[in-house]
C-alpha cells in the first residue's frame, strides 16, 4: 500500500465562521468572506501579515461569478500574497483543508489561510449541479443532488417502516443538534413525536426523499488557519488540533455506473478502509469520539454511516435506534446539526473539520460534547461520489504505521 507521506506535522490554529442563513442581503460576497476571515485571525491571534499563502474555494457555477477570488481579495486579504483557488463541487471545503494541509506539510509555507464560501441565494444550485452532472449526456434528466434511490434501497433491505423511521430519527436528531448551534441555518425545533406526521406528510421530492430529509441552501463562509509543528512550538493562542491524515478520492466516471445490476463498493467505504488501514485503526467506532459527516440528506446519512464506519448488515440502524449517534451517545454524529441544517456549499465540507476541531478544543459552545474529544473524523462529499475523509487529533502522539 502506498503511504501518504507527510513532510512535517500540520495543525489547525484558527477557525472562523459566519452565521448561515438564506437571507444575507445585507452583505455582498466579499463582506461575508471578510467576516469569517476576521474571526479566524482573531481566533488564532494572528494578523493578515502573518499569513504566507491563501487558498480560496467555492463553486463558481452556482453564483456564476467568474474568478470570485479576485473580488473576494477585499475580504480574504489575498492582495499581493500567494493564492490558490479550488473548485471541487460539494467537496470544495474539504479539498481546501487538504490543500492547506499539503501546502504546510510540504514546507513551502509556514502559515496558510483557507476560505470556503457560498451565497447560494444568489444563484441556482440545482440548476448548476444539473448543468455539470455530465458534460454530454443525461443532463436533461438530472435533478441536482435529489434522488430517491438510496431510500428505495434501504426500504428494500430493512423494510419500509424501519427504514423510514431510521431516516426520520436521524433528521430529527440533526435538528436537535442544530437547535444547540446558534449559527445553524435551519433550526425547526422538531420533536420525535412528529416522526409519523413528517414521514407521511412532508412534501415528496423524489421517491421517498421528502423535503424534510434534504439539506438546506445557505449563505455563509468558513475560514481556517493552518501552521507547522515548528510554529506551534513557538506558542498558539488556542490549543492546536493536528491533522493526522486525509484521503481525497473519486472512482466513478458517471452516475449511471453506480446503478447497474450490482452495487459497486461505495467510494466512502473505499476511502474509509484505505485511510483506517494506513493509520492502523481497527475499530473506527471505538477509536473516534466524534464524526462530523457531510450529510446532504437523512437517507444518505444513515446509509453512509455504515460505509464510513465499515459496519455490516443493520449495525448502523441498531446504533441509531439505540441513540449511539446522539450528542451524548457512543459516537456523536454532527453536533453542529450537519449539512442538513446548514449548507453554504463551498464552506460546507470545510465546516466538517472546523466543527470537529472545535469539539477537540472544547470550544463548540452549546453543542459541545460532554465527554473529552481526542480523536475526530470529518468527511466531505460531492459529484459522482467523491469522498474526502480526514482524521484530526488532540495530541501529537499517534503511532506511525509501517508500510512496505
Amino acid at each position, binding site marked *: 500500500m502506498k503511504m501518504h507521506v507527510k513532510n512535517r506535522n500540520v495543525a489547525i490554529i484558527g477557525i472562523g465562521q459566519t452565521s448561515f442563513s*438564506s*437571507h444575507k*442581503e*445585507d452583505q455582498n460576497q466579499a463582506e461575508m468572506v471578510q467576516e469569517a476571515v476576521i474571526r479566524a485571525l482573531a481566533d488564532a491571534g494572528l494578523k493578515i501579515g502573518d499569513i504566507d499563502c491563501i487558498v480560496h474555494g467555492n463553486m463558481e457555477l452556482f453564483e*456564476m461569478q467568474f474568478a470570485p477570488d479576485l473580488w473576494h481579495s477585499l475580504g480574504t486579504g489575498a492582495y499581493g500574497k500567494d493564492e490558490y483557488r479550488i473548485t471541487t463541487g460539494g467537496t470544495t471545503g474539504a479539498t481546501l483543508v487538504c490543500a492547506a494541509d499539503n501546502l504546510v506539510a510540504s514546507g513551502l509555507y509556514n502559515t496558510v489561510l483557507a476560505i470556503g464560501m457560498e451565497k447560494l441565494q444568489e444563484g*441556482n444550485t*440545482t*440548476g448548476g449541479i*444539473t*448543468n455539470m452532472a455530465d*458534460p*454530454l*449526456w*443525461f*443532463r*436533461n*434528466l*438530472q*435533478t*441536482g443532488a*435529489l*434522488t*430517491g*434511490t438510496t431510500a*428505495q434501497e434501504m426500504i428494500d433491505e430493512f423494510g419500509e417502516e424501519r427504514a423510514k423511521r431510521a431516516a426520520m430519527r436521524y433528521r430529527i436528531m440533526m435538528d436537535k443538534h442544530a437547535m444547540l448551534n446558534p449559527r445553524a441555518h*435551519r433550526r*425547526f*425545533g*422538531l420533536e420525535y413525536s*412528529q416522526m409519523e*406526521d*413528517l414521514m407521511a*406528510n*412532508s*412534501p*415528496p*421530492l*423524489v*421517491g421517498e426523499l421528502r*423535503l*424534510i430529509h*434534504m439539506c*438546506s*441552501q445557505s449563505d455563509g463562509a468558513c475560514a481556517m488557519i493552518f501552521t507547522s509543528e515548528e510554529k506551534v512550538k513557538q506558542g498558539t493562542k488556542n490549543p492546536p488540533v493536528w491533522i493526522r491524515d486525509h484521503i481525497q478520492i473519486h472512482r466513478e*466516471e458517471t*452516475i*449511471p*455506473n453506480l*446503478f*447497474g*445490476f*450490482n452495487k*459497486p463498493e461505495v467510494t466512502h467505504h473505499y476511502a474509509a478502509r484505505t485511510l483506517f488501514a494506513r493509520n492502523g485503526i481497527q475499530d473506527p467506532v471505538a477509536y473516534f469520539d466524534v464524526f462530523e459527516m457531510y450529510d446532504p440528506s437523512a437517507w444518505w446519512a444513515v446509509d453512509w454511516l455504515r460505509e464510513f464506519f465499515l459496519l455490516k448488515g443493520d449495525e448502523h440502524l441498531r446504533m441509531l435506534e439505540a441513540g449511539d449517534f446522539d450528542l451524548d451517545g457512543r459516537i456523536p454524529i454532527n453536533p453542529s446539526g450537519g449539512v442538513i441544517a446548514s449548507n453554504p456549499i463551498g464552506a460546507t465540507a470545510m465546516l466538517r473539520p472546523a466543527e470537529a476541531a472545535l469539539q477537540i478544543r472544547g470550544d463548540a459552545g452549546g453543542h459541545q460534547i460532554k465527554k473529552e474529544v481526542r480523536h475526530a473524523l470529518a468527511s466531505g462529499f460531492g459529484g459522482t461520489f467523491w469522498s474526502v475523509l480526514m482524521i484530526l487529533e488532540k495530541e501529537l502522539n499517534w503511532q506511525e504505521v509501517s508500510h512496505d
Partner: protein
Amino acid sequence: MTEYFGTTVADIFATMPKRFKPEEAKEVDIAIGYEATGEGGGKWKATIKHGTLKVETVEGELTDCKTTIHTDAETFVGVTLGMIGALDALSSQKLRVAGDPKFLMLLLPKIFTPYVAPAKKPDAVTARDIIATLAERFRPEKAEGVAMTIGYDLAGEGGGRWTIIIRDGKCAVREGLADPLTVKMTMEAKTYAGMMVGTIEAVTAFTSGQVKIEGDMAAAGATAKYFRKYVVPGATEAEELISLRVTNSIEQRFATGPVMGRWFAGIREKKFLANRCPKCGRTQIPPREICAWCRVRVHEFVEVGPKGVVTHFDIVYFASPDPLTGAVRDTPYATVYVVLDGATEREAITVDLKKEDIPRLKEGARVRPVWAEVTTGSYRDLIGVELDEEEGSL
C-alpha cells in the same frame, strides 16, 4: 387585526389585486385556497383565470381549490415578506401545501409583485403637506430648458387642486388648476401621498386605474426627476440595500471527439454503440477513449440493446427546471436506470420513462427505446424508454 412583522394577513390579501400582473397570468386557470390559523388569520380564496383575479374571504370549508396552503398567520406573513424562507417553512411543516407545491414556488412570484408592508408613520402625512415641500425640493439643474405646467386634482381628505409651474429653471406652486396644462393628474389624495412616501408603486397605481393622466404622458413620467425625493419629517430612512437581478442565457457547444462521438453517430441511426475494454471486458456507455479502471486504450465497438432491463428508478415530484431549455418539468416523471441487452452489469444508462407507464414501473421491467421522429445525432434523439410488455416479463 393582529400584526406580524408589522403587517396583517388581511392586508396581504387586500393588496393582492393591486399586485396582480394580468399580462403574466394569461395562461393561468387556478383557484388557490389559503388557510391562516391563529390570531389575525382566516380563509381566503384567490381565483385566477386567464388574466383576471378574484380574491374572496371564505367562511367554512375551502372548496374547488386546485391548491390549498395551510399555515399559521405569523408564518404566512413571514413567508410573504421573505422574513421566513418558504422552503424552510415547508420543511418544518409550519406551512403545508395540498396539491402541487410548485405553484407556490414558481407561479406566485411570476404573477404578483412582491408584497411590501405598509410603513407606519407616513399614514399621517397628507398630500397637502407634500405639495407644500415641492418648491424647496426642486432641482433646477435637472430642469434646464424645461417649460411645463402640471395640474394635480387630488380628491378626499388632505387633497385639493394645485398647479406646478416649471419654467426658466424655477418652480412655483399655485392653488387651483391653470388652463392650459401640459398634463393633468387626477387621483385620491391618499394615493398621491402613498406614491410620494413609497408605499404605493406609481406604475401599479396607474396600471390599476387609480391614477388618471390627461395630456402629455411623458411629462407626467418626467416630473419625479425634477424634484428630490420626499422624506417624511422625522423618519429615519432604512438603509437602501440594492440587489442586482441577472438572468443568464448561455449557448454552449461541446466537442464529443471521435470516440464518444460514435455514441451520437449511433443513436442517429437508432443504435446503441458501446466500446469494450480489452482487459476487463466492460462495455462502456457512452464509449470512452480508455477504460479508467484498467488504464488501457479501448478500440472495439459493440452494438448493445436496443431493449434492456430497469435496474433502479426515481419518481420525481420536485419540479426542477430543465437546464437545457429553462422549462419547468412536468411532474411527476420517472428517471430509470437501464442496462441494455448485451451490456455488462455496471454500464447502465439513465433515461426518461414514458409518463403513462409510471404506474406499472417495477425494478426488473423490460423496456424498449422511444426514438425521435427525426434523429440528428443529439441526446434528444432518444426521447426515452417505454415498457416492453409483449414479452410478458413484468
